[in-house]
Every structure is written in C-alpha cells, then in structure tokens.
C-alpha cells in the first residue's frame, strides 16, 4: 500500500544508496526544514481561514467569500498584504528586542514540531523524552511574548505581557500534571511509545473517568497557554487594545499571529497524541470488520482529523464564551484545576499500580 511511511523509507533508501552519509544528513535536514516551513505556512493559512469561517457561521454571517472559490484564498491575500505592509518600529521601543521577539515566538513554535508524530513512521525526531521536550520548549514562547511586551514601550503591551506571563506559568502546572497521568500509565516519555501503547484502545477510553478529567483539564490548559478566548488575557482587545502585539505591524505581527495558530495546532496535536491515540485508527473491541475498514484510512488523515476536531473545539469555545478576568483566571487554575488534577493524578497512580485500566 502506498503510504507516507513507504515513501519516506524509499526516499531514505535512495538517498543512502547514492550519497555519502554526511550528504544524506544534510539533504535530510534540508528536507525537514522545507517540510516544517511548508507545514507551517499551510497550517497557518488553513487555520486562520477555518477560524474565520467557524466564527462567521456561529455569528449567523457568511465570512470571507470573495477571494477564490468560497473565499478559500482570503488568507493568502491577507498574507500578501501583510508582507507588503510597512513594519513599523516605535521610537520609544527597544529596537533589538522588539525585532527579535516575533522570531523567538516563531522559533519556539517551530522547534516543538520536531517530536510530533504526524503519521505512522513520520516523525522528525524520535527523541526518547518527547513529551517533556514539547512542554519545556513550548514555554520558551512566553519569553518572546514578555520581550515583545516590554520592548514595545507601550503600557498596554506591558500589561498584556505580564498577564500572559502569569497565565502561562500557572497553566503549565495543570497541563504538566495531565501529561504526567498519561506518562504514569504508559511508563514512557517517548511519543512513539505513548502512541504504541494505545494500539488496543485510546487512553481516553481505556483510562476511565480520571483520564477524561485530565483530558478536559489539558484542553482548558492549552486554551489558556495559547492565549485564546476565553483566556485571551494577553490580547484582550476590549481591555488592552491588542495586548503585547499592539505596536507590531506587517510581517512581524503576522509572525505572532501565525505562531498563535501553530501553538494551537501543537497543543491539540499533543492532546491527540496523549489521549486520542495519535495516528492510531479508531477501533471498537472485537468488531474485526469495522476495525479493518478503519485501518484503511491513512494514519495521517487520522492524526490531522482528530487534531482539527480538537481545534474546532477550541474555536467553539472562543466564539461562545466571554473573557475571564485576570484574577478569576488565576483562581480557576489555583483553586480548581490544580487541586483537581493533583487528586486526579493520585487516582491515576493508584489505577496504574493496581492495573485497573484496560
């Protein structure tokens, strides 16, 4: 069967037959960089369009429908416009940090792509501490946001950045605890191992109620970590005009914008990997025929499909709920999510020791 895995393997084989080991490595690296950038651009364009369409339909309007068929190329047109727009740097800004910040946010988002398994056998870097790597590297982004807020020399930006800092640091805790509950069950930090452990069923089905609770907490935490409504404290346009990126324009703003969507994708991809079986198809117990049909659907479609469903969920939240206040946001984390996830972790640990899961 023609699958992505075979193509990649054949490509690798062909490379190693024709070139020396160093050249192969270089070619592979170039391919990976090209792949990452393409994925980045495509995801950004697709997700922004999706967001606008989802928002429009929830708000009983049509959304973009002028550029291309059904407005498909609206985001492309927007990108072209943003590229040609002048990137202003305010006089009062710390110019070096101001120009550096979007790239830090962007690079942090790009680096996190490395250990994510997009399909069976498609993974840029199968690191054995993959999940830990993702959580740690993705928190670098907050440095970029703080940098942007501070260096803009704008009080709204500063407030937005400080809010963002407080928020991401807090929600990292419950996100981490939710991840740990899966790590306890699988006994591994490697992304491959976690996905393989869901061969006979996704964790969300195997893990009983405690895992469902950690899934919900994890979804809430990634909504908060990606600074999306109802937790969009850092931007909060009705309060802080645009928060940390008030002073950014043109392509530098586009980078922030793109990074936000990539972060959403990564957050949801991680949730899919941990709880929904990554690229594993959906199987029901002993229904062999059904399972066989499910297997025919390529693994990449499974992975992207599940991720898009989760992303849709986040968009659904965004266009339904009002924004929380900053102190309520921190209350929610410290008074509700953290205690619940701690108790939950204990239950999961007991479950793992006693072997109560399937």
């Amino acid at each position, binding site marked *: 069967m023609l699958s992505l895995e075979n193509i990649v393997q054949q490509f690798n084989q062909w490379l190693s037959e024709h070139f020396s080991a160093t050249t192969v490595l270089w070619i592979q690296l170039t391919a990976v960089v090209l792949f990452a950038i393409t994925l980045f651009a495509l995801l950004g364009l697709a997700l922004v369009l999706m967001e606008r369409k*989802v928002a429009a*339909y*929830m*708000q*009983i*309007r*049509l959304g973009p429908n002028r550029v291309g068929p059904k407005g498909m190329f609206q985001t492309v047109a927007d990108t072209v416009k943003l590229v040609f727009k002048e990137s202003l740097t305010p006089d009062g800004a710390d110019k070096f940090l101001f120009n550096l910040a979007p790239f830090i946010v962007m690079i942090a988002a790009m680096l996190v792509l490395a250990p994510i398994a997009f399909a069976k056998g498609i993974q840029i870097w199968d690191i054995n501490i993959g999940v830990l790597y993702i959580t740690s590297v993705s928190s670098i982004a907050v440095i970029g946001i703080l940098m942007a807020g501070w260096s803009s020399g704008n009080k709204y930006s500063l407030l937005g950045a400080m809010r963002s800092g407080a928020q991401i640091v807090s929600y990292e805790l419950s996100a981490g605890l939710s991840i740990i509950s899966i790590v306890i069950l699988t006994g591994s930090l490697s992304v491959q191992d976690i996905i393989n452990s869901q061969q006979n069923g996704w964790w969300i089905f195997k893990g009983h109620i405690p895992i469902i609770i950690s899934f919900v907490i994890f979804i809430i935490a990634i909504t908060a970590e990606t600074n999306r409504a109802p937790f969009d404290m850092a931007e909060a346009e009705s309060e802080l005009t645009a928060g940390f990126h008030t002073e950014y324009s043109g392509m530098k703003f586009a980078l922030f914008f793109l990074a936000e969507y990539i972060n959403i994708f990564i957050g949801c991809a991680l949730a899919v990997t941990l709880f929904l079986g990554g690229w594993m198809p959906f199987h029901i117990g002993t229904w062999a025929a059904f399972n066989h049909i499910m297997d025919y659907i390529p693994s990449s479609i499974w992975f992207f499909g599940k991720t898009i469903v989760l992303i849709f969920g986040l968009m*659904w*939240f965004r*266009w*339904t*709920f009002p924004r929380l206040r900053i102190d309520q946001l921190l209350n929610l984390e410290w008074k*509700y999510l953290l205690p619940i996830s701690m108790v939950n972790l204990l239950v999961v640990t007991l479950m793992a020791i006693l072997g109560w899961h399937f």
Partner: protein
Amino acid sequence: MFIKNYISEIVQAIKSLLKGMKMTGYYFTHHKEIITEQYPDNRNTLQLAERFRGEVIMPHDENNEHACTGCTACELACPNGTIKIITKHDITPEGKKKKAIDAFIYHLELCTMCNLCIEACPTDAIKMSNAFEHSVYNRRDLTKILNQPNSKIREGIE
C-alpha cells in the same frame, strides 16, 4: 458538605457553559439562519423602503416642468442652510413679470435628511428619493442644481 458544594458548583458551571455552546453549535450547523446581505451583489434585488430619505430631488414631468414657485419656504425651513434658491423674473406671454427660480441649489454635503424642507413645501415640488450611494471623488460634486436646464414651472401652480 464543602466538597458537595464544590462539586455541584463545578457541575452547574459546566452545564451553563454547555448551554451556550449548544446555541452557537446550532447556528454553526444551520446555515439557513444566516442573515448576511451581500450588498453590492444584491443591488438589483435590493428593496428600499419607499419613504427612505436619501437625497432631495425635484421631479420634472415629460414637458421638463416642475412645481417650484421659488417661495423659499424650504430654504427657511432648513436648519443647515442646505438649500439656496436663486430667483429670476420671467416675462409671461401676457407681458406680466413673474417670479421663477433660476437655480435651486442643494448642498448634499450639508444635508441631514431631516425632511423639514419637504414638509414645508406648499406645492410638493421637492421630495426625497431613495438614492443612497452618494460617494464622489470631489466634494464639489455634492452641490447640485435640482432644476433641470430650461425647465419651467408647471401651469396652474401659484
């Protein structure tokens, strides 16, 4: 007791959130409810209210005649000085002098569509039209002369 309150609080909160999501979900799946009007595209089918006040016009009949006597009631009624009437003296066939309008100048850029001039007009010579696409590149184009060239006052209107 504390734990029970704590949990019921969370359950209530989640319930209220799901209710809202149910509603947005309904609209997401029911595209019939969409109310967007695609304005420049639906120009041909656009239905404007007949009383809609877009701009002041002076209707002329097929003989290029209007009903304005130049009494300046509209000019006096206008709060913004939008209307300026310049009169001249026509000489009727009988040789009598008769007041008539030379130019009915209408400053659309000053008009607030308050309808007071139409109310004031004793001969119903002016009325509001439905036109609402008034944008022009030059501000001067908004100053209009409402009576057509060589137009006359209709017979029998005093």
